[in-house]
């Protein structure tokens, strides 16, 4: 469960302070599929960094599974990311010239899992995203854009996180491939009960989630259930 209480973030650049977040509060329960929307410069990326334990808020508390994450050191944050969070980024998600399997197993390397078990768990995660087994030993630069994002999703899954954070996962894809990726998220949410937070600036993409948080000028302006949820036709 995610609990954000009055989170603010202020960046100090030179003499001018810039308030990226000005008091944001919300709760996301386990198993929810939430989209965080907002125009560029709204503070949604800052919020994602805080939710993903990449950064800490200036004030306010962020509870992840009941644990306060807002005042941790760099290394403690790294542990949170390792154990509880899976990331899917917009671009450069995979290590170049490295096999699909190794890319997927990468988080387990830092979690101290033995090599053989790493391979097994990576295969299970890859199968869950629907990637064909023949691609497992391909190098990351031999894959299509949709396949790359599926591997990235598998990597986000592999350490059994409480939360999967996807930052514009369809930003670099055409709409058809984007559908496949969104379909993969919906499937994981529905079949495995994964909590998924999707950061996007596109309505079309956000409507694949069941709930939309809208951020503008560092404030949460709306928190609504999706009226007509789009269901991706995944192949």
């Amino acid at each position, binding site marked *: 469960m995610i609990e954000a209480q009055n989170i603010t973030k202020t960046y100090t650049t030179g003499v001018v302070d810039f308030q990226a977040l000005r008091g944001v509060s919300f709760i996301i329960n386990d198993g929810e599929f939430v989209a965080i929307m907002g125009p560029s410069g709204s503070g949604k990326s800052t919020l994602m*960094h805080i939710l*993903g334990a*990449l*950064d800490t808020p200036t004030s306010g508390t962020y509870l992840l599974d009941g644990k306060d994450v807002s005042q941790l050191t*760099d*290394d403690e944050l*790294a*542990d949170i*990311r*390792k*154990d509880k969070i*899976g*990331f899917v*980024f917009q671009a*450069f*998600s995979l*290590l*170049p*010239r*490295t096999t699909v399997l*190794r890319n997927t197993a*990468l*988080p387990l*390397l*830092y*979690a*101290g899992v033995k*090599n053989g078990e790493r391979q097994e768990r990576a295969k299970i995660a890859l199968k869950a995203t629907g990637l064909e087994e023949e691609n497992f030993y391909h190098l990351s630069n031999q894959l299509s854009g949709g396949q790359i994002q599926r591997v990235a999703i598998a*990597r986000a899954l592999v*350490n059994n996180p409480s939360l999967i954070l996807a930052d514009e996962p369809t930003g670099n894809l055409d709409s058809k491939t984007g559908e496949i990726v969104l379909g993969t998220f919906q499937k994981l949410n529905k079949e495995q009960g994964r909590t998924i937070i999707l950061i996007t600036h596109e309505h079309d993409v956000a409507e694949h989630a069941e709930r939309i948080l809208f951020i503008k000028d560092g404030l949460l302006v709306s928190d609504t259930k999706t009226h007509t949820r789009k269901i991706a036709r995944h192949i």
Partner: protein
Amino acid sequence: MTPLDILRETYIALAANKARSGLTILGIVIGISSVIAMVSIGQGAQGSIQASIQSIGSNLILVTPGAQRGPGFQISAGRGSARTLVQADADAIIKDVTLAKAVAPEISGRYQITAKGKNTNTSVVGTTAAYPGVRNVEIDQGSFIADQHIRSLSKVAVLGPTTRNDLFDEGADAIGQTIRIRSIEFKVIGITKAKGGTGFGSQDDMVFVPLSSAQRFLAGDTYVTTISVQAENPESMTIIQQQITDLLLSRHHISDPQLADFSTLNQADIVATASSITQTFTILLGAVAGISLVVGGIGIMNMMLTTVTERTREIGLRKAIGAKRRDINRQFLTEAIMLTLIGGLFGIALGWTISYLVTYFGLLQTAVSLYSIFLAFGVSAAIGIIFGYYPARRAAALNPIEALRYE
């Protein structure tokens, strides 16, 4: 991350850019191999010079006539030209300097020597039976001059192998043949073993005759040109040298040592001088090689910094999925150390090969010492750590958010 995991990651990272890794390794290979080759060549030179000094005898003190000067007179004959040492001086040394193991006086001069129509000009040394022991001369055929030859003024000669080859045919049996020195016939009774041409003039091109015969028939006087004194061990050399100096000063009635009409030369001094020259030489070569090693290290740092910049997003990604500062630091440091260790291994092999080839082609007898290998390996590991430390720290300190945004 287990050490095996780190090694695997390192291998993948280095293999991803083979050309660059290879060139960086090459820099270290050149540095390490030149250190090993240069040090071994320097030590080989040192060894060969020392061996050449030792070949004239061991623990040797040479007493030679000096310039004769009277008080107030500044005219002096050249060093070694004076005839100030006599047979009696040698006898006195034998009698009074008890620490001396052996004493061999000699008189030498160059004469034209003929035998059966062939002739040569070489140095003729009149000496005693003690000479072979003192000056490391070994007998190949026949025998050396004995005490009895000296007492009876025998006209016998022992030839060096080169002289034998010049006067007779190469490898011919010269024992029992006759040679003529200053038209006086000498009978050949022995041939010495070849010592090889060494730095102090070939000792193979010589004729040895009894001291008394040389004084009587060739020189016509009783002076000697050198008295070779052999000490029991290197430690007693200084004392013996002092005793000889005192003895000869009193025998020659000279009160001021500055005006001595003879000089003594301690072999240890020659060895020490030669050693210090070759040591300087080795240090010089090593320093030049060391510079290339440092340049190689800077190459590693350069490559690692480039790598860190190029892989900024990778570092960001690794950090985002849970890598700690320590993990990143370790990974990049291991890459740098791996580069130097691979370079170090190939460098040792190459340096060894170079030094082997130098020996193989007979340029110099080189020896690769274990210590230079340990030194080179230690230095290469240290270079990896020193020059890898800064780039690794920079990589580890990257903020994951900024690293992921890096274009």
